[in-house]
């Protein structure tokens, strides 16, 4: 019996690796901001540099906060789907992260603009407060300004359907209940 021990260990190890093939190899950092309010900020908007916006203005709707930049190739890949979502009525607010205003505006001209407006974060300070480490990143925020979900990377149809849509709809429902009370 003892002679089979190495074989058994090997098979067990193989089993472990096999299961590992199907596991989600998520190298994203888990966000400590979940269920916490959006960090405070005060910034100008992209199209309207004189207008200042703070975290208070963001409350009142369920929305996606999309961190992007014209320098970021995956953002370009994700963008058409965001335009699509906006057309369907999804609220999207953008954070123009570490970008140049002109480049960003040109980019939106060319690729379409799904954003209600864009918060300008040229230095990346707001990004650091959000725990952003690379674009694109998308947050789901409820009507009280509390972060409920975060996705690092491209938001495509699968990500929207699997991760965002159920939560978005649940939060909208909660907002309705809040409002009618």
């Amino acid at each position, binding site marked *: 019996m003892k002679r089979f021990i190495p074989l058994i260990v090997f098979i067990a190890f193989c089993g472990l690796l096999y299961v590992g093939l199907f596991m989600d190899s998520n190298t994203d950092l888990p*966000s400590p901001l979940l269920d916490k309010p959006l960090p405070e900020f005060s910034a100008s908007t992209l199209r309207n540099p004189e207008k200042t916006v703070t975290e208070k203005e963001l409350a009142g709707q369920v929305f996606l906060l999309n961190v992007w930049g014209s320098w970021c190739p995956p953002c370009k890949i994700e963008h058409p789907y965001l335009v699509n979502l906006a057309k369907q009525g999804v609220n999207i607010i953008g954070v123009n992260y570490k970008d140049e205003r002109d480049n960003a505006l040109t980019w939106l001209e060319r690729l379409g603009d799904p954003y209600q407006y864009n918060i300008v974060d040229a230095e*990346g*300070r707001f990004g*650091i407060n959000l725990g*952003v480490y*690379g674009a694109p990143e998308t947050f789901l925020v409820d009507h009280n300004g509390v972060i409920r979900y975060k996705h690092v990377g491209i938001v495509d149809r699968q990500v929207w359907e699997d991760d965002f849509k159920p939560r978005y709809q649940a939060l909208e429902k909660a907002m309705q209940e809040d409002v009618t009370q």
Partner: protein
Amino acid sequence: MILLIKRSCRSLLSVFALLLLLTPAQAVIQAYEFDEPEQREMFNRLNEELRCPMCQNQSIADSNAPIAQDLRREVHRLLTEEKADEETVIEFMLARYGDFVLYRPKMEARTLVLWFGPLALLLLGLFILFRLLKRHQPQVEDQGLSEQDQAALKNILNGKDHD
């Protein structure tokens, strides 16, 4: 023929050594000003303690990633503008990036396996090795001959003498 191989090996080695010299890519050297020398020391220590969220196997001291540069700048700002101490800076980063931003994991119940796992496995391996070696040692058993065999032996010896 052998001389040829030896010579090409040597030149290959020197090329390799030269390449090694070129590899350490220094992080972008940014001239940071500090009010006190203590702050600079804290700055350097903190940069070694914080992990680059993008290049996750490097500290922000080593990494060239944009986020690493931003975080170094932020550490500098916290130290100089907000007069923060090291603990405050660490907490600042933890609040935004989570436990993983610590280059050396915290010592808690969760991370015990991480810290002591390799050592435990090593000890286990040594233990198994020890047991294996012990088993393969030739075991010399000196039982001696039974009484019957001894009598038989005596007979044979005596018989041989008489022949």
